């Protein structure tokens, strides 16, 4: 029976291609398909994800793309390319993660010439893609979840956000004369933290000021923020209780690069028990240690020009810690070694699940797909 499913699945693919579909479809019952194209790239509604392999012993070769079944029931696509010292196998299937599913794209590198290989694996992302702490965003959508090794190999800017929060320009409605940064925010939708990192002299001290303006809640007790600045005691603030709705305010922290990595980290998270779990942040100022001006002057926007670093969070002068461009992995393979990288890609209209942490594993994703395909009524199979 499984063979017949596979045959039917493989037979239907050429007809899909003939009907000008761009490759092998990735489907799950009841949802729109995405595709693995003839070049082995994942084609989604937000753009295309491909991989580029480079390094010594790597040669050009087109992949062979075919429809396959995983675990005898899960419809999948696979692209295999013999790239000299390394065989590149890209496998994709739809995992039926609630509510819209995610495409699981596994890149497998196999050393085949029985010698050490040092290669680079570059993710080809859409030009407008923005790399974050755990995920890549296109616009406000989190479209690709990254394995954590990605960050270790990346070049970083001197400062910027490194989170999966969202920039919301014009969200704030500050009353009275104040710094223009209070009109914009970054928001950690779904509880994700807002995180900034600033390059500093290792072990140095700074004065960090964080600015807030609550323009959604009128009552106190709704949005409580837990603010952590490296080297300083954490502070919890309820902006409405402390300053009022639409009233800009700021907190001062005596910061220190405590771990000596030359980067000062600032994070705003939902405080324990807060009703609204979406943290917000409007502005960040860095001043030399012990030299922060009066807080009223900072809030009024009179000291932004003299700050060592001034960030209009979510506004025009904001930036990601990661420069634009592709994500690159440096991979060392010993003779015969195999390494796998698993990426989760957003399906039509959806996001990848990053807000609550990735509770899915490769095993549970595959089980989910297996369970759904196994029991889906044959008469309504796509």
């Amino acid at each position, binding site marked *: 029976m499984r063979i017949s499913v596979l045959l039917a699945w493989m037979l239907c693919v050429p007809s899909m291609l003939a009907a000008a579909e761009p490759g092998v479809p990735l489907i799950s019952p009841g949802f729109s398909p995405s595709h693995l194209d003839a070049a082995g790239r994942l084609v989604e509604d937000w753009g295309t994800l491909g991989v580029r392999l480079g390094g010594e012993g790597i040669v050009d070769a087109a992949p062979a793309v075919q429809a396959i079944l995983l675990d005898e029931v899960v419809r999948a696509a696979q692209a295999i390319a013999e790239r000299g010292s390394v065989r590149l196998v890209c496998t994709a299937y739809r995992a039926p993660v609630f509510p819209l599913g995610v495409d699981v794209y596994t890149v497998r590198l196999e050393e085949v010439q029985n010698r050490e290989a040092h290669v680079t694996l570059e993710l080809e992302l859409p030009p407008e893609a923005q790399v974050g702490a755990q995920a890549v965003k296109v616009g406000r959508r989190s479209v690709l979840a990254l394995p954590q090794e990605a960050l270790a190999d990346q070049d970083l800017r001197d400062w910027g956000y490194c989170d999966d929060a969202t920039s919301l320009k014009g969200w704030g409605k500050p009353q009275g004369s104040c710094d223009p940064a209070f009109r914009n925010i970054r928001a950690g939708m779904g509880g994700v933290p807002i995180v900034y990192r600033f390059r500093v002299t290792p072990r140095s001290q700074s004065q960090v000021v964080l600015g807030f303006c609550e323009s959604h809640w*009128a009552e106190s007790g709704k949005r409580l923020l837990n603010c952590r600045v490296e080297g300083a005691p954490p502070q919890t603030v309820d902006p409405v209780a402390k300053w009022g*709705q639409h009233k800009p305010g700021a907190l001062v922290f005596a910061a220190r690069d405590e771990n000596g990595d030359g980067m000062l980290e600032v994070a705003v998270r939902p405080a324990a028990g807060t009703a609204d779990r979406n943290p917000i942040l409007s502005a960040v100022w860095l001043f030399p240690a012990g030299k922060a001006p009066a807080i009223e002057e900072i809030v009024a926007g009179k000291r932004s020009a003299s700050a060592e670093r001034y960030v209009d969070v979510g506004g025009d002068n904001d930036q990601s810690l990661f420069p634009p461009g592709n994500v690159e992995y440096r991979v060392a393979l010993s003779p015969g070694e195999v390494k796998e990288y698993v990426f989760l890609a957003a399906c039509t209209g959806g996001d990848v699940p990053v807000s609550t942490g990735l509770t899915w594993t490769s095993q549970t994703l595959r089980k989910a797909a297996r369970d759904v395909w196994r029991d889906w009524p044959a008469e309504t199979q796509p």
Partner: protein
Amino acid sequence: MTVPHDCRRCCVNRRQCLQYLSMAAFGAGTLLPSLRLRAEDSGQPAAGDVIDPETLRPQPEVRLAAAFFEFPRPYWLGWPGTTYDLDAHQAEYRSKLDESVQRLGITLAAESQPISDEEGVSAWIARLKEQQPHGVLIMLQHIHCWKWVTRVSEEAQIPLIVFAPVGTAFTGHVGRGSRLPRVHVVSSLDWSGVENGLKMVRAKRMFEETRMLWIRGKERNETVLERLGVKVRAIPRDTFNLEFDKQPVTAEVQDLASLLRANAQKIVEPTETDTVNCARAYVTAKRLLAAEKANALSMDCLGMVGAKLVPTPPCGAWTLLQDQGITAGCEADLYGAVSLMMTSYLLGRPGFMNDPVPETVHNTLIAAHCTSGIRLQGFDKPPADYLLRDHSESALGVAMQVLWPVGEPVSLVRFTSANEMIIDTGIVTGNVDTPPAGGCRTSVEIKMDGIEDCRDVKGFHQVVVLGNHRRVLEAFCELYGIQHVHSPQFSTFAEGSAT
């Protein structure tokens, strides 16, 4: 997997249950010839197709690995002490464990000898990694064995229950152990704590093997909830009313309708036809669940009633399902239904998903809806009293007004997502009648524990369940990485609004 039918799980008594199951076995042909003919002619379900609700409950395989951890003998100083009779205690706990796993339907792989050194721990961890049981139980026999607990937790990464009989742990051990991910520590002499831990493992497996029908809209698809693993099969809302239309008045339907009326303390609005339609809705739901290989459902019932697609809201039918351990949720509220599953799978009793109303004069919470289960004390326990009422918002069909026992403790449970659960507790202070109140037929008034102001109670469509189960529910959350939160202890209205 088919499980023998347990009459105690029915809404009817054993004699009546056996009667209609046996009628079903004979096709009930002599009783309902006209209906049988109708069924054969029109492709309707046959009159004798009685579905045992027990077969609709998930019956997962649950595998548990267990071992005693002891220090090399003989003991000299150090807890539990030289006088602690290791052999006698281990024999006692082995016996209790055997009884528990048998009671819960868990397959046990217990180490035949206690593990007493690093090598033994390493070898066991290797076996656990290979066998991947669904849960692990360590029974501690020496206070110095806690470092091995940490090793098993970190290296095997499998949900772990640690039984530390009094005499094998101090506060620090229990605290540190409890903060390890996927670990539940039972520091007690009370074996029921261990059995509750085993129930947690079984409940998680039941979640993983559950397919819930999400009856709403027009879509047909299937997805899976993170962490819990519940499969959510969306099917068009019309499926239910079209199947209901096909459902004949079988012997099962007639018997159930009669029993509903006979067992009610009072019948207020429903007619005989209403009770027959209620039973038809119940049988329809069972057929749909069986056809879709599903174990639970949640339906856009209000939309269906609003569109006048069925002559009866499903409230009464949902009560019957809930009493048999089949989760039946209202208003297509997905996490409301998952919360109902929590009480069914872990606590073995129906929950009551409700609309919460703060009663500001008495500072209580009124939990109101139309689908309370009747077997509040457990699926195998005697039912509570109920009145047959209609669905108050539409004045249609059958909804039970279930009289909750005044003075008894209750728990309120609500998954806000697969990653967070609200847990509160209280005491039933009364049952509110409609009229004079409006709203829903079952309205339970609750004095909340440890919540200064009833207006602060968190959640909506939270599930009320009889008994104070706070510790067990919290432990389940901790074992499976779910954050548990509670309504605020002190009034958030005390300081007034900043505006």
